């Protein structure tokens, strides 16, 4: 995925972000960080972002190598090219961090997020929700006479658009996992 230009004056900033949002182009990058799965490591990474005023758009973490106790953290962050460069250097020098990959610049990657949507409604709205879910390849994982829970996997943009469509049809709640991402090819 190529660098995405977020529109100027975007409000998606952390509370600690004192930078002028109109000053420079803000890019969104997806970082994969391989860390020792030890106590406090997630707090260490998150503390770096809050302490230095960087943004976190989404973050997922789980152990991916049980034998070596390694976890993979996928972070979607935004900032000027200089800030993104700093974030990577700051992550890279942390003692429990093994690898830092910028999937946004290291070549094509696949990015997926899982989301659950609870949609309540009757009659036409209920039928329309089900029809749209089919178009988006969302699965029904729970159903009552007045509600559905849809499960969907896709890019964050796809999940955003489905959520927009569901809103007038009785969308009650959304749970999202945040992005998991891998580089394409070997």
């Amino acid at each position, binding site marked *: 995925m190529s660098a995405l230009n977020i529109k100027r004056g975007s409000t998606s900033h952390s509370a600690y972000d004192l930078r002028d949002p109109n000053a420079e182009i803000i890019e969104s990058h997806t970082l994969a960080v391989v860390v*020792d799965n030890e*106590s*406090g490591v997630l*707090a*260490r990474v998150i*503390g770096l972002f809050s*302490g230095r005023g960087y943004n976190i758009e989404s973050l997922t973490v789980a152990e991916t190598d049980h034998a070596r106790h390694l976890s993979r953290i996928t972070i979607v962050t935004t900032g000027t090219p*200089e800030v993104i*460069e*700093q974030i990577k*250097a*700051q992550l*890279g*020098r942390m*003692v*429990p961090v*093994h690898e830092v990959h910028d999937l946004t610049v290291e070549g094509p990657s696949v990015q997926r997020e899982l989301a659950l949507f609870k949609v309540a409604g009757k009659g036409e709205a209920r039928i329309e929700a089900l029809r749209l879910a089919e178009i988006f390849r969302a699965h029904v994982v729970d159903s009552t006479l007045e509600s559905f829970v849809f499960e969907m996997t896709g890019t964050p943009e796809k999940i955003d658009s489905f959520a927009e469509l569901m809103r007038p049809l009785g969308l009650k709640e959304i749970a999202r996992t945040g992005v998991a991402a891998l580089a394409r090819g070997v």
Partner: protein
Amino acid sequence: MTKAMTGARMVVQALKDQGVDVVFGYPGGAVLPIYDEIFQQNDIRHILVRHEQGAVHMAEGYARSTGKVGVALVTSGPGATNAVTGLTDALMDSIPIVVLSGQVPTFMIGTDGFQEADTVGITRPCTKMNWLVKDTAKLSGTIHEAFHVARSGRHGPVLIDIPKDVQFATADYTPMQRARTEHYQPRVKGDIEAITAMVEMLETAERPIFYTGGGVINSGVAASQLLREFVDATGFPITSTLMGLGAYPASGKSWLGMLGMHGLYEANLAMHGCDLMINVGARFDDRITGRIKDFSPHSRKVHIDIDPSSINKVIRVDVPIIGDVGHVLEDALRIWKARGRKVNKEGLAKWWKQIAEWKAVNCLDYKPSTKTIKPQYALQRLEALTKGMDRYITTEVGQHQMWAAQFLGFEGPNRWMTSGGLGTMGYGLPASIGVQVAHPEALVINVAGEASWLMNMQEMGTAMQFRAPVKQFILNNERLGMVRQWQELLHGERYSHSWSESLPDFVKLAEAFGCKGLKVSDPKDLDDAIMEMIRYDGPVIFDCLVEKHENCFPMIPSGKPHNEMLLGEADTQGVIGAKGAVLV
């Protein structure tokens, strides 16, 4: 063969194996088993401090003056929270220290137990790395790993939190060689292509300058030697940050003095006007750069740093070289010699001529007085009377610190201990004790202001108890001098809470501690008093009453570039705009 032992004994054994000969600490409930082990051995000396902040600054002073790792031992809860300022100070100035803290037993963690605090949580942002050890089998390995992390790559403070039950339990000891270190091996060798690019640039540069920092000191004595050889062989001018003083000798022919906010005129103008800047182990701190946009606008910049995150953090550079200063300088010197030791002689001659003109401004000039002691004069006399002695200087933070950096000359590394990045008032007295413990025969002087000094003055008790003959050279202006200076320049001379009222009588205070007190207010008496201080075999509190409203010049006001320095009182009217006033 591994040996089974208690966690408390492991701590002492691991410290011995790491070559630790002194620990600065304060006992408490959660570290009693470790103190019991310390009691039963004689290899490691324990210095009982009066406040845990003092212990950490002492460990810093010890580390900075020896090049070894400093160690502090504190109890849980308040013991650990009192260590936070020292840890942050060490993090900002890249000082290798290991702090061991006690913790409530593992089964009580999270219950708000007596003297419980989330120590690893609190210290996570102010350590390079920290660990809570919940299993005695992992304790000794973790301590060895901690020493490795503290002194590898960019040095820094680490903390190990040890619950009391872990200290009592028994497990096998992990020797140093078997501890986990392979996961943290920062790169020390610089990229040869980048180093060659730097050499090519310095062969043709017309107006080059070396700008060096604390990284040279941290790299070790050999790095300072290489730097001297390189500077003297090329004939390039050299300036240094506050943290790097002594890496190149103050008496060296290429020395321009310190740069930065209160740096020398010639150093700052040379930085502004150079065409090649070689940053060796410095980090473009805001005290150095002034207004970023106008920082050294016409130069190509090389940056040698062991920490990749320092590169392009503040100033974008043309040639980044990630590696240890010593290794990089060694390679650079070898390549430069092999290519025929070329420099642009003609350009350099012109450049030095220009620098000589700036030097002629005599920027450290001040109005002398026969009635009151000018702080600059006090430091000039201190310098003259102690030069050539086996001397170590620590400082507190403020005007006196800047004057000390301007007026004292350092001929070698590890002789100058000051709180640069964090600017911690109260650093100097405990640091001086840490230095003195490491160098019992040396002359250790803490150049202080009275306000800073009061912040950790309880440590005079430590100095007395352990016979550390530290000299507390207090430039007493009865003011928070630097705060007062900023209020004069920025806040319409409204001196809000920046004077020290109800000061103690420092001579009586010295007597109360059982040491010597000296008080001087007449310039005529100064030399004799300084000599009396030096000759006295024990700690001295020297109350030097100085001019109350002296300002520290030169000064680059916040938000201004290097070429807009203030040289004296006449330059100060309305120079700092609203934008500059926001900055610190």
